[in-house]
């Protein structure tokens, strides 16, 4: 009884303190959103975003934040403990097929990717980074603890902070990828736990692992960054964006029909918004005029990734969205026979050559824009056991040498640091640019091989970042919809957009010794020891005695009779 009283008192106290000191309880809000986009290949792309905004500053001196409402406490503590200014982490299973699917809303490389900007007051960045990766690996149940100095780089230009602040000193940036990381339910569960409603209500009810992992592509991410509280930007707020992108395969699940419903995708329907959310919306891309039911009068137009798209909007905070059945099951049927807009920027990578001594990494970047050239920033991080011959680096476009205007190269140190290569390359219009560099495969020490050395060793994706000229600016037909006075000079925001394209990771075989050999040697040695030494030891330690030969049966019988008769026995 007292316990209950105590608990009640505590909650009351909390309530009152909140009411009494409004300054202490900073404003926070939560938004959730789902975008569904039918793709031309017949697949369907669903992108979830959950955004928590909190008007407080963890990093402020002398202020200890201990009262958490919507913002997950585990992350908040990590941010303040390690003085993190910005944190981006993604877990991806599969490869985003740019040529079939177009650009994703939030790109990510296969495996795990983590990049963090530390606050410039941090003195031991490497130490903080090491500890942070270990803590995050606990939070997300992932092998992020495999991130160490041998796969961490400090890109000088490719990863600029996305939030507030003008940090340019890349000593406070750490970037690492784990291309081998496999993402599964054990990573999804902790990710869902960070949501204010968990997976109990709102859009998160759709996140059931048995459907999410029955897809062609799955990617989940957490992005934390400081943003402005208001337009004047007098004080900082923290933004946490949790995103989850998934592409469902039409062929394997839909038997060739281009027809989808929320229930088919997630085996759930929507019944309510998350009660804690200020906004909860579902957007469906209807630019290509799919049949959508139930229909909604709410439409929204936006320029997304340089392309003008039209969306139907379903507001889950309004009761009429759910209709009579109290549940929302979107049904989508589309032809999808129109030509897809060719992605303007696209990159791929492969290993050339054969044999186990040398090889060549080829990175091919395509600019599909018919008349505009634009620069891209290419970042490559190659593990030390591929020894790059940087003098063989060539960049060719249209079979002509293309000299990069900026090169940042940090050579590897064996067993300490990977190679980092960053280049600013101008891509001519409608061209294919090939970047090649030769490498030699290092011979590892025998303890450095993974348990499956014949599988090969991974090289993380290279990253192509660019401001791509927008298709909207290229298209002149849209003047019909817009007033003429507004469309002569293209608007800046619409004239180009930022994309990051990740290439596929590489699997490279290194010269591998026959590991069954030591095993054979061990077996042989053990046999020799057991048989040879054992018998020898036996011989040495045994005491020998002359064995009295036992008498033949006839003699024993004779002795028996002699004993009875009392005469001396035979020997």
């Amino acid at each position: 009884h007292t316990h209950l009283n105590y608990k009640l008192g505590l909650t009351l106290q909390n309530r009152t303190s909140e009411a009494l000191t409004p300054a202490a309880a900073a404003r926070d809000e939560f938004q959730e959103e789902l975008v569904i986009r039918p793709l031309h290949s017949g697949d369907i792309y669903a992108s979830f975003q959950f955004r928590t905004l909190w008007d407080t500053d963890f990093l402020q001196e002398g202020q200890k934040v201990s009262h958490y409402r919507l913002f997950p406490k585990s992350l908040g503590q990590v941010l303040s403990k390690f003085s993190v200014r910005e944190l981006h982490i993604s877990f991806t299973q599969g490869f985003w097929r740019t040529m079939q699917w177009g650009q994703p809303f939030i790109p990510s490389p296969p495996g795990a990717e983590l990049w963090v900007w530390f606050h410039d007051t941090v003195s031991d960045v490497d130490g903080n980074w090491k500890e942070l990766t270990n803590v995050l690996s606990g939070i997300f149940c992932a092998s992020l603890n495999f991130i160490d100095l041998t796969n961490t780089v400090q890109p000088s230009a490719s990863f600029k902070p996305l939030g507030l602040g003008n940090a340019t000193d890349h000593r406070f940036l750490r970037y690492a990828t784990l291309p081998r990381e496999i993402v599964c339910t054990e990573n999804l569960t902790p990710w869902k736990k960070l949501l204010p409603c968990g997976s109990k209500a709102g859009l998160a009810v759709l996140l059931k692992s048995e459907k999410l992992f029955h897809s062609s592509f799955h990617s989940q991410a957490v992005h934390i960054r400081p943003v402005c509280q208001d337009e004047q930007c007098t004080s900082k707020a923290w933004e946490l964006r949790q995103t989850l992108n998934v592409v469902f395969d039409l062929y394997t699940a839909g038997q060739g029909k281009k027809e989808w419903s929320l229930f088919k995708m997630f085996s759930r329907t929507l019944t309510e918004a998350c009660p804690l959310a200020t906004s909860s919306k579902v957007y469906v891309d209807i630019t290509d005029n799919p049949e959508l039911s139930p229909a909604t009068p709410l439409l929204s137009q936006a320029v997304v990734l340089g392309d003008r798209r039209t969306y139907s909007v379903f507001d889950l905070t309004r009761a009429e969205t759910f209709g009579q059945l109290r549940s929302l099951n979107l049904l989508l049927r589309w032809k999808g026979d129109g030509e897809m807009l060719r992605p303007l920027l696209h990159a791929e990578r492969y290993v050339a050559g054969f044999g186990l001594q040398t090889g060549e990494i080829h990175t091919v970047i395509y600019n599909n824009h018919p008349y505009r050239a634009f620069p891209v920033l290419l970042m490559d991080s190659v593990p030390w056991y591929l020894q790059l011959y940087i003098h063989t680096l060539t960049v060719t476009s249209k079979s002509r040498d293309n000299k990069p205007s900026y090169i940042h190269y940090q050579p590897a140190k064996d067993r300490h640091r990977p190679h980092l290569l960053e280049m600013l390359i101008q891509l001519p219009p409608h061209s294919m640019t090939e970047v090649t560099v030769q490498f030699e495969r290092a011979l590892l020490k025998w303890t450095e091989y993974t348990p499956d050395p014949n599988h090969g060793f991974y090289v993380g994706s290279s990253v192509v970042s660019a401001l791509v000229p927008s298709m909207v600016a290229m298209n002149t037909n849209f003047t019909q919809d817009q007033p003429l006075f507004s469309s002569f000079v293209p608007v800046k925001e619409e004239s180009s957009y930022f994309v990051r394209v990740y290439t596929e990771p590489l699997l490279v075989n290194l010269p591998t010794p026959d590991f069954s050999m030591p095993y054979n040697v061990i077996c042989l040695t053990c046999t020799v020891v057991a048989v040879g030494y054992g018998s020898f030891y036996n011989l040495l330690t045994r005491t020998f005695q002359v064995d009295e030969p036992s008498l033949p049966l006839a003699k024993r019988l004779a002795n028996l009779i002699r004993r009875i008769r009392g005469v001396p026995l035979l020997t």
Partner: protein
Amino acid sequence: RGLLTRLNTPICIVCYLAAIVWFMGLAFEPFTLRTDMSENAMGSTMVLLRGASAVPRQGVRSSQKTGAVSTWLVKAMQSRGLEVFTQSFSRKLPFPDENKERYMVRGTNVYGILRAPRAPRTEALVISAPCSPGDSNNQAVGLLLALAQYFRNQVYWAKDIIFLVNEHDLMGTQAWLEAYHHTNITGMEYSPLQGRGGSIQAALSLELSSDVITSLDLILDGLNGQLPNLDLANLFYAFCQKLGVLCTIQGKLQRNDWDTAEGYTHAAQTMMLMVLKQACGRSWGDHGLFLRYHIEAASVRGINSFRHYKTDAATIGRLLEGMVRKLNNLLERLHQSYFFYLLPSLSRFVSIGCYMPAFGLLVVILLLRALDLWVHLGAPALAAVEGVTEAQQPSGPAVLTVLTPVVISHLTGVALYLLPVHLQEMAVEHFPVSETEAVVLTAVAIYTTGLALPHNTQRLLSGEGTEQGWKVLKLTALLYLAVLLGCTALINFSLGFVLAVTLVPITASMTPHMPKALSALVMVLLSPAFTILYCVFIYQELIEAPVSVSEGWMLFLSVISQGILDHALYGSLVYPLLALFIYPCWLMFWNILFWS
């Protein structure tokens, strides 16, 4: 030392006989090992086979009549949900290939990639089917498309699967592989590939020429005698057993009566066929070119031998499905089992440890003879310590006497390697022969001309050949041959062994003091060219298609032209090895015979 020099000849004879007996004993079943799956990932895992049905044969046939195969294939693959790409290639052969009737080759490869869900494009498997104009392999293409359709609807793929339909059989494969790995070893012209699937782990090639399949033949021998990992053969055998499909290797069924004479002969024949095929160093199926890139590959060929037993297409589909699924399960590249082996049957194999002694015994003869010569050469040298001035004098010319024949025979070898292809135009102008005949006959002519050289060599030299001179030359030649054969056998055991069997007896026994005419005849009969001729006859005998002498001669000529073409087109090393090394080495011994 005394023992070795005194009993040198008997020991050599015993070694030679022991080598032959050892080799023939390899086919005897109790001496061989049973094959079993070493790769854990492919071992006991359950694979439920459902099989691809509905082979669209009709489509293939009708479209091939119209000739637009590649466009039809692109559409067919696209409709099955693959990412489809094409590659065009062209190649002008060094001289017309009369067997396949081609000279200017121009073709298109079509390939479709089935992307594995949630896989990062790092690993791939290849299923290929050669498709040439005419309808020789359209069953395989049909099966390939059916498999593609079936595989596309499955969710368990962990590796991308590339379905490749290559034109002009090996040349298409070569162009595709070179483009995939961005290499150019043979001067092929091709367009770059647009889509890739990462590092290829394994490949299967399908050849089904007829509607009715009674058995499946597994072909392993690749370029330069390379073999895929034995686990690939084990996998094929395991599924054939499971599905009750008759399977053969070298076209020979397996027999169970190893203890009878027929049983042994059968196993020995199968093994001999493998040795001969491996020795000739050409790729016996499309798979052979993959091996260079460390991709384990095998060809599966459907055989119609007009037996009662028939296998339907669905069963073959299930078999391939099973194999591909097990390969899909692989966590590492195939590496657990043997890479060097001989197969007397599909269920039995001879590992490198068992067959190498047979070769070792042959090479030991060369080394023993060399040791013997060294001892004999050393004896006068010991005497020379006392008479210093005498012994020093001949050492100067000795080097020259050795060097001249070595250089001249190697120059002949270079001529044999270079001239046939380069002189073809001149030959065609002056003689009424086709280009191919010109090349082959030039090669034969240069080969025979080489035999006349020793006399000229002697005339070039100022003085008479001394006793010591030929001994030094023979010592050099013996060691040279031993190293040559040793290196060859390490890469291609069969080639090394076949050459050793014929070359070792004459080279070991050759001296200038033997009766000239008889030994010259024996030497010619055991020269590399005649070895090829014998191999042709033995091979024809073993595949139960014996030929007459004239047919054999024609086959011999075509084998030579094929050897030269294989070298030019795919980088086979047998022709340069024979022309640049083995033949000059044999010429050195020829030189010794005519040492005057």
